[in-house]
């Protein structure tokens, strides 16, 4: 039988894998969001024939190529570390939910192939071939996100297999793939990634507009980028909120402990209140200092104020998720709501001001929206994974049963953290350096429209 793993080793394994995921999520999310924005810009160009849009697409592609250089290896790390750190978990994954991983590879191939083609051969492609390439990049990235989310959704709502006498039997891979939380989770990940790509661009465009000494042409360009990204970001943040609500109802139906922990909700009751803020007092078993909206949790969970929402007291304590997930959940919802309000506000101001520049206070509000959006995504992922604890596979396998028996993981933790810090700094330096050496004014000046041929030069 399995030896008992010291708790510290489990914590280190979780910290190591959590860091790898948190790091990868930054690049993976932008890697889904940016190609979508590039595609939107290419399509807008076909409609308006305004040459600023393909220029945007081209400059965003440069950023995307740099990000992809980190996204691909960090994704490789996650894929391999799954087997290295959680071998007992991956045994079951291989038996039951291997299909989305396998299909994801083909999506990954599609993305890598056409990204190389779009980046290194753009000057040899026709306009149509260019749009098709970037469409396939966006498609590959989006499909990857959906497929990986299928596996994560299955960990929350595992279906498609039976366990008898410790053996997995009667495997139905398609049932596992299309598990109850798949649709809502996948859509949530996808639209929130589109939202993040858009707000990352909105934040940068706002930052550029705040800086003085720009030609009219340059500020017009940034204004267009800002307005376009706010449109996409606004729509996508609304979609994220609506579909997050659906995901919450899936929790109510399938993972009541998680919903209860997300709300710091202990007593099973009808007309349950929605709790905003506050901290759980584990002794008294209650949430302290929260603003409560009566009946709202019941209503959100099941569309009825008298719906009975199970509290944590209903479940054995050893199956409780950690209490901090309440704060993470609040953070995610707060950021999402703020971004919806902000994009509506910005659009109204833009519309009323017409040709006049946007007010500086609004731009200052917009600058951090990209970072906030990423923070929302991260807190959402940490929420969904910590909220599933103590299980790796909900009600089937505990995280402590999944972890490797190998010892000395601390060293690996230090090594990988060092690597991630190095890459974060490196990426920031490269981004800055590239866009400093290729300023927008130069792109306008050299070719008139910024769409020069032969940008890819070799020594």
């Amino acid at each position, binding site marked *: 039988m399995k030896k008992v793993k010291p708790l510290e080793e489990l914590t280190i394994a979780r910290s190591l894998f959590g860091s790898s995921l948190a790091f990868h999520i930054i690049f993976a999310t932008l890697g889904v969001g940016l190609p979508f924005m590039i595609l939107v810009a290419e399509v807008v160009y076909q409609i308006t024939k305004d040459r600023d849009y393909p220029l945007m697409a081209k400059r965003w592609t440069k950023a995307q190529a740099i990000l992809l250089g980190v996204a691909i290896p960090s994704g*490789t*790390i996650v894929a391999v570390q799954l087997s290295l750190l959680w071998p007992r978990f991956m045994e079951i994954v291989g038996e039951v939910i291997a299909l989305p991983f396998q299909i994801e590879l083909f999506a990954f191939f599609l993305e*890598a*192939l056409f990204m190389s083609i779009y980046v290194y*051969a753009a000057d040899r492609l026709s306009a149509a071939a260019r749009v098709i390439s970037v469409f396939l990049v966006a498609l590959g990235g989006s499909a990857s996100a959906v497929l990986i989310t299928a596996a994560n959704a299955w960990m929350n709502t595992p279906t498609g297999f039976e366990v008898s006498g410790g053996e997995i039997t009667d*495997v139905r891979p398609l049932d596992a793939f299309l598990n109850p939380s798949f649709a809502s989770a996948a859509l949530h990940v996808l639209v929130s990634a589109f939202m993040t790509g858009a707000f990352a661009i909105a934040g940068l465009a706002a930052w550029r507009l705040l800086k003085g000494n720009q030609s009219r042409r340059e500020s017009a360009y940034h204004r267009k980028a800002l307005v376009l990204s706010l449109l996409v970001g606004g729509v996508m943040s609304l979609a994220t909120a609506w579909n997050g609500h659906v995901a919450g109802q899936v929790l109510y139906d399938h993972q009541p402990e998680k919903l209860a922990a997300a709300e710091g909700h202990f007593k099973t009751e009808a007309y349950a209140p929605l709790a905003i803020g506050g901290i759980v007092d584990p002794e008294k078993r209650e949430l302290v200092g929260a603003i409560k909206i009566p009946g709202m949790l019941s209503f959100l969970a099941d569309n009825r104020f008298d719906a009975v929402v199970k509290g944590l007291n209903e479940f054995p304590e050893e199956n409780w998720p950690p209490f901090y997930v309440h704060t993470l959940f609040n953070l995610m919802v707060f950021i999402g709501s703020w971004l919806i309000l902000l994009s509506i506000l910005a659009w109204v101001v833009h519309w009323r001001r017409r040709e006049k520049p946007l007010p500086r206070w609004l731009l200052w509000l917009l600058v951090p929206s990209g970072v906030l959006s990423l923070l929302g995504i991260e807190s959402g992922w940490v929420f969904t994974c910590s909220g599933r604890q103590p299980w790796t596979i909900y009600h089937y396998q505990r995280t402590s049963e999944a972890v490797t*028996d190998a010892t000395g993981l601390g060293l690996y933790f230090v090594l990988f953290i060092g690597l991630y810090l190095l890459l974060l700094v490196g990426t920031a330096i490269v981004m800055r350096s590239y866009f400093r050496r290729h300023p927008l004014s130069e792109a306008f000046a050299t070719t008139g429209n910024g769409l020069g041929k032969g940008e890819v030069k070799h020594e």
Partner: protein
Amino acid sequence: MNEGLLAVSLVWLFVFIYAILGSIDFGAGFWGMVHRNEVQGEAGALANRFLSPTWEVTNVFLVLLVVTLVSFFPAAIYTVGMALLLPGSLVLILLTIRSAMMAFQHSVRRFKGALEVVSGVTGVLIPSLLVSVLPILTGGFIDPESGMLRVGKLFTSPVTYAYLAFGLSSQLFLSASFLADYAREADNEPSYRVFRRHAVRLGPLTLITAVLTTWTIGQEASWLRQQLLEEGRWFLLSILAFLIGYLALFWKRRDRQKYRGWPRVAFILFIIQYALASFAYGRAHLPYLVYPSLTVDNSVTNPEMFRLLMVSYGIGLAILIPGFYLFWRLFLKDKRYLAPKEEGE
């Protein structure tokens, strides 16, 4: 052919494909470093030009390999995951640094010098770690008590070094032959001569190290040497392919402008050489995935999953093959990419 055999053949095919692509990729990094300061003939630049668009695709094959193994042989993950924690983690770290540098230097030229060194050094270290997986699978290096790798034993065993010598010389030989062909495709005769010379020197070395490896394997895994010797005819065919390919490097051209050698013919024959040898090694390794605890048949996945995985391969490949074709046309065939200098003339 039963399911286990079909699945392991597919996995082994991917190992082979990644070994070839990885050899060329990492080898090109190494040659790019060796020749980075040579102005004449720009052999280093040629190697790096090949690397820029291809490393991402090569890297995907590594993930493909891992995922295919997990999907088809879930019962093997525990043993393999425990044993490969150290080499696997080191490969991940080195690979990440290398990939990031590739992407960074394309955007910011300041990193060019650093990249060439990083790409060259990791181009030797990563394949060494990957090759060290092979002796681990043949048994004797995993502690039966803890399931962990005996790191000290692995890195002091002559068997490991025999595998390393064979792996590295093969990598450099294959990448030199490939780059010779790539240089000829780009009409770059000076670079062609540089890489042809490397291939000519390394060829015999790969044969010597191969014999050496087979001989030392017996120390740790006599079962494997026994079975390898039974596959003798495949190895003879492999050597034959090598000899013809090697001779092709010396055949004269009709075109007096060009130096001797038919690199395309040679490279294809070298691929066949390694395909035959890999096939024989794989056959000899059966029925074990990891000796002595894991066999192919006791680790293969359930029939329903197996069927759906095969369907997904069919659909996936049907979509991707046109993509690969386009990729090949654009980066390995298109003169405008291969020899961009001529554009202005």
